């Protein structure tokens, strides 16, 4: 018998043993809607997360199209506006799009910290995440062309805080990749998948690594608990 189709709702039953959106009550804040940010928001909405707030101040440029979820029609638009439209069209989820740079504020639930400088990561971590009891979990990614890092930290856990802060090197210390070797969609998708699945493991009270370091070519995966 052919399946009934309904153009007005999304049926999540094929993922219910892994992630049941109706049981997930946490607010999600995504700071940065670039490569990993746009993919992560897309994945969260695809999974059925409804309470998603996204901060970004940037506009879509042509060089963003190969590794971010935006389309040709989005060039010149604010990233959060374009992302909200794409996400609603693809999932029915209406995200809260905030077109401004997040520097400091009250956060709660799950926070994805996805800015593109170490300085901004450190500043937001110190001002709005560290020791904030309302933030259950912070997930932070760092990406280069063929690999990256994913951190998952409980901001009220002193041991995790201390170990994480040791990884907050300065921008001057970080590697600068050549312009033609900075990002490619599969790397973005891999890191976004690890980051998002970390949240699923947290939601299901399963263990997750505090630090995952990934090389995709050749494949090497390192994981560590702080």
């Amino acid at each position: 018998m052919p399946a009934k189709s309904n153009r007005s709702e999304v049926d999540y039953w094929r993922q219910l043993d892994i992630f049941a959106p109706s049981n997930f009550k946490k607010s999600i804040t995504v700071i940065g809607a670039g490569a990993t940010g746009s993919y992560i928001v897309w994945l969260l909405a695809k999974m059925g997360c409804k309470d998603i707030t996204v901060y970004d101040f940037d506009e879509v440029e042509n060089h963003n199209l190969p590794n971010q979820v935006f389309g040709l029609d989005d060039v010149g638009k604010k990233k959060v506006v374009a992302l909200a439209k794409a996400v609603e069209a693809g999932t029915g989820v209406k995200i809260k799009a905030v077109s401004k740079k997040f520097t400091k504020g009250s956060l709660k639930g799950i926070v994805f910290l996805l800015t593109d400088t170490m300085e901004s990561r450190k500043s937001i971590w110190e001002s709005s995440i560290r020791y904030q009891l309302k933030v259950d979990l912070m997930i932070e990614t760092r990406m280069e062309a063929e690999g990256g890092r994913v951190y998952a930290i409980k901001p009220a856990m002193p041991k995790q805080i201390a170990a994480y802060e040791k990884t907050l090197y300065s921008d001057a210390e970080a590697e600068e990749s050549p312009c033609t070797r900075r990002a490619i969609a599969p790397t973005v998708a891999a890191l976004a998948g690890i980051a998002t699945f970390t949240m699923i493991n947290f939601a299901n009270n399963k263990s997750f690594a505090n630090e995952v370091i990934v090389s995709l070519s050749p494949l090497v995966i390192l994981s560590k608990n702080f």
Partner: protein
Amino acid sequence: MKNRTRFAVREAPHVEVLAPESNLPAVVERGISQIVSIGKIPGEIREMPVNGRTTIRALFIAIGIQNLDRCEIQRNGQETDLDEVVEAGDTVLAIAKIRGN
């Protein structure tokens, strides 16, 4: 068929390594007893034979990686110094400090 002895490569606590195919048996067959896993991440981890007192810096130079200014150096999952002397079974990694997103 010759009976080969295999040395277990010690893994760092809480660190899981999925590394490319091992060249360990061939190295062991040549009678070299100290094996260290070394590499830059992102990139390849390889197994290197070590004879005598060898520093981490010397091992990286031996595999052609000289500029480690923008890397975190880890030995068995713990932060370490380039002048440390390696021991058999160590996993020594230079992990690039990256910042993009």
